[in-house]
């Protein structure tokens, strides 16, 4: 396993009291596989990603275990995290403009990573940077390497971020909504590029997204999060063929699809709970059409078939249909 997360919990100190953004999250990713974490705003998917990169802000408290290639990271000092970030773990964020330094050219920024982690000389590093830009299919890479971020399109900036992330051949790539800011045709290009690079380098990929369509096309495994907890975890094909958590069912029906014509969308009533005052027991229960008296207790994440687990007292959901 490249990354193994066990019972991860992250609590933020806030003015209004402690906020548990992530609560008991466990999953693992193998080399050459993509695990998607999917959910809506505030479900804890990005906080989970930040924890896995050692990038939680100062007001966060973390518990549980984060193992990178067998080595415990949760207790590491910041200096050790810094050494591993960029080399063993790399990341791509939603908005490349805020992650790139506007004062340096694309080539310089990639070369910097290579000089830092691979101890390459200035010239060799810049040449490698151009090769990497070419690798992520930036046309005319030698010229683009000498341009500043604002001279590049959104899609190209994201390619630069990917080139930078791949510079040191990381074992783990974490991509947090990498295409959310991009147009749909450019999104398709970037996701295809990430797939290709994963196949080539054998890196493990954690893909954070709100888009189930992207999960269907690009993920091997999926974790569905709701209000800080894992609602369902499954191989992607099984999740779509046989969702076993009511939230997953609702989410699949709420996402508008271009097939099938102007039907009504499934509607999940209400809104996500306030994590400062989360409901007791199952957090989805207040919005769940299948809720019952037992949902006042928190359901454990339990397997319904090999590799497919759900946190729902009603699972397997066929019992609901039979009733």
């Amino acid at each position, binding site marked *: 396993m490249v990354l193994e997360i066990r019972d991860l919990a992250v609590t933020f100190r806030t003015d209004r009291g402690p906020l548990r953004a992530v609560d008991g999250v466990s999953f693992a990713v193998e080399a050459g596989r993509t695990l998607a974490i999917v959910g*809506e705003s505030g479900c804890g998917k990005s906080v989970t990603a930040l924890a896995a990169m050692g990038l939680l802000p100062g007001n966060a408290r973390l518990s549980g275990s984060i193992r990178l290639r067998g080595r415990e990271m949760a207790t590491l000092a910041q200096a050790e995290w810094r050494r591993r970030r960029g080399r063993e773990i790399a990341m791509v964020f939603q908005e490349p403009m805020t992650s790139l330094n506007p004062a340096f050219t694309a080539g310089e920024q990639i070369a910097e990573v290579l000089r830092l982690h691979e101890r390459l000389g200035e010239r060799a590093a810049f040449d490698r940077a151009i090769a990497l830009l070419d690798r992520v299919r930036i046309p005319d890479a030698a010229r683009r390497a000498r341009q500043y971020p604002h001279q590049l399109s959104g899609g190209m900036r994201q390619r630069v971020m990917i080139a930078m992330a791949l510079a040191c051949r990381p074992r783990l790539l974490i991509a947090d909504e990498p295409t959310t800011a991009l147009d*749909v045709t450019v999104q398709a290009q970037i996701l295809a590029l990430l797939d290709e690079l994963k196949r080539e380098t054998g890196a493990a990929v954690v893909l954070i997204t709100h888009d189930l369509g992207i999960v269907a096309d690009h993920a091997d495994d999926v974790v569905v999060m709701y209000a800080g907890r894992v609602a369902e975890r499954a191989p992607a094909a099984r999740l779509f063929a046989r*969702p076993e958590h009511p939230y997953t069912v609702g989410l699949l029906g709420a*996402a508008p699809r*271009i097939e099938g014509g102007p039907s009504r969308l*499934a*509607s999940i*009533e209400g*809104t996500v709970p306030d994590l400062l005052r989360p409901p007791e027991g199952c957090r989805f229960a207040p919005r769940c059409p299948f809720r019952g008296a037992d949902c006042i207790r928190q359901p454990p994440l339990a397997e319904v078939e090999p590799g497919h687990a759900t946190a729902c007292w009603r699972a397997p959901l066929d019992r609901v249909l039979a009733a």
Partner: protein
Amino acid sequence: MSEPLLELRNLRKYFPLRDALGRRRGAVRAVDGVSLSVARGTVLAIVGESGCGKSTLGRLALRLIEPDVGSVLFEGEDLRALSPAALRARRRDMQLIFQDPFASLDPRMTVGAAIAEPLRLHRIIPRSGEAARVAELLERVGLRPEAARRWPHEFSGGQRQRIAIARALASNPRLVIGDEPVSALDVSVQAQVVNLLADLIRDLGLTFVLISHDLGVVRHIADRVAVMYLGSLVEEAPAEALFAAPRHPYTRALLAAVPGRGLRAPPLEGDVPSPIAPPPGCRFHTRCPHAEAICREQVPALTGEAHRAACHLQDRLPPAPPLREAEPGGERLRRLQSFFQPAGSDA
């Protein structure tokens, strides 16, 4: 077909660019010769990627900005010919809903005051009837009447968008333009608002122009769809026909790029060219997998009647791949989803 409610004739809008000394240096060709009409009681979607001109077109249609060339007819009347007073009176018939409900509601105004504002502005009902009308509008969008006394910041994004919709409906408009009205919302809340819009359009007989980049949302509420690329219309057709048998290679590429349909076609290459210096000939030729010599030289005309497309090669292209795929969850998933009854409210 009866007379269209809204008709856009050959609209053109360039935004001039100036250098540091204020000299003109070219222009962004935001909208470049677009003609469209919207029949009463129907939903027209305008789709395309960023910079295609869809938002500018929406603003031109409401005469929030002036076109360089072309005209906008509302119920057959040229909006450009109206006096300022007559235009103000017309405004009650045309409303706009924005993407960001956080920016479009005044934080210093209660929800009730925000909804009542257009009622007063257009002197629609006497003050004594205001509260009742506000309550009715709130219920109409699935909120409780008590919401009138509260402030925008007390509401979630989905609720604020409902409030913005109630405000837009206050003056009983005949035309509503929604510029990415559900794009800022999370999927589960987005579904509630899409269902609400569909209900309002049907129940109130609204004519609606939906400006959106999200083809899934468009599929769910549009009767007709217009696809824009670099300021021009490339295709316009009944929604059914456009999704089942898209004619323009750009429309096909857009549909193929929608995630969740399997990775069948290689993605379109390159970026959208600059609207300051669009390519000659067909503007899509630099990215089109089918482009030939003629595409680089001649601007294709929009041809066809009910289904129009601007492509030199449209009669020679291979048929578009079929859309329908069996949903992996099948009958079981459909039955489970039937328990998620569309509810009126997220209040």
